[in-house]
């Protein structure tokens, strides 16, 4: 009978607190991850929204091409009307 009582005391005084401590640690860690994940999701959404201007790069690409063509035409005209530098 004494052993039964010793076992009861061990369960209530040792096993139960250890189990509760460990489970509470897991729960706290899991709850700590939640806000971090939410911030990551918000950052991903914001990053996606920032990239909405990426299609404008196609316009920039076309403008750069046109500009370089104009510069090439202008340079070609200058090449015709302006003499080359004299050789030293």
């Amino acid at each position, binding site marked *: 009978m004494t052993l039964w009582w010793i076992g*009861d005391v061990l369960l209530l005084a040792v096993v*139960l607190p250890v189990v*509760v401590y460990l489970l509470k640690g897991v729960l706290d860690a899991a709850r700590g991850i939640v806000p971090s994940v939410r911030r990551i*999701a918000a950052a991903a959404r914001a990053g996606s929204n920032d*990239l909405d201007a990426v299609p404008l790069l196609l316009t920039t690409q076309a403008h750069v091409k046109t500009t370089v063509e104009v510069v090439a035409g202008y340079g070609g005209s200058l090449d015709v009307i302006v003499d080359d530098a004299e050789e*030293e």
Partner: protein
Amino acid sequence: MPAAGVVLIIAVLLIVLALVYYLLSTIVALRQITSGLDEAIAGVGEIIEKSAPVEDVVKDINANLDAGVDLLEGLLVKKAGLTDSIGLIEGLYPGAAAEGLRNFPDSKTIKPPRISEVYTKGTLTLARLGREAPIAATSPKGPVLRNVEGGSLEARSLYPETRQARPEKLPRSPVIGTGAPVQYPPSEQRGGATPDEAEIREKGPWAETAAEGIVPAELGGSDAPREMLAEDRELGSPVLGESTGSGEPATESGIDPSAGDEADATSDGGPEPPEEAEPDLKDAAAVPRQVDRDSADPEDGSDR
């Protein structure tokens, strides 16, 4: 059941309850994490999708810009020479010469010449082209050199214009008719300008008639009220025309009225026949009529 057994059962029950509570709470937290990760993964997926073409586009833009830089560098070096190009770059962007030209590694070692030397050469180039060199009169860093618009306007003034705009205000031809800026009642004029007082004094009382009009309005002249005019009078001033109200000639050279005073019918007018041509005498042989002979007889008291 002994008391120790009851206590054991209670202890085990407490442990199970603790396990249930914390494990359920952990499951809820893990589900929230899963949901947040799903959102994050979706956002990252959009980022990957949207940024996929960026590399190709940016590479193409860089390739075009590289071609432009190569073109401009090559043109500058070809036209101004490598040394003067470095001087020109240094003059426009102080300190930029140290970086040199990308396609000309030797340019980094060149000591940039004074910018005035470069502009002197440019001036000669422009002078050969027959254009005004828009260089600064005082300093190469002066405002004239950078004033592209001003330099362009000055150079533009050297070229002929399709529509002459200088001088800005040339004398304009007089406007006549219904569109004339000054309208005169028809009774005041019947051709020519309205004589003023000095002209009336010079020409005499008859000129006053022209000033007052052939038929004054109160006697039924052209500009009389409609009820005073005849019923069949339907012609208005747009049909009759109007004078300019000014004595200035309508054409640039005008009309020289003295030419008529000096005209000679025997020498002026008519065709100029060749020197050897026979005179046209077909009308000279006509016999004068008796009436004409009688009127030409001096004894008959003619006024010949």
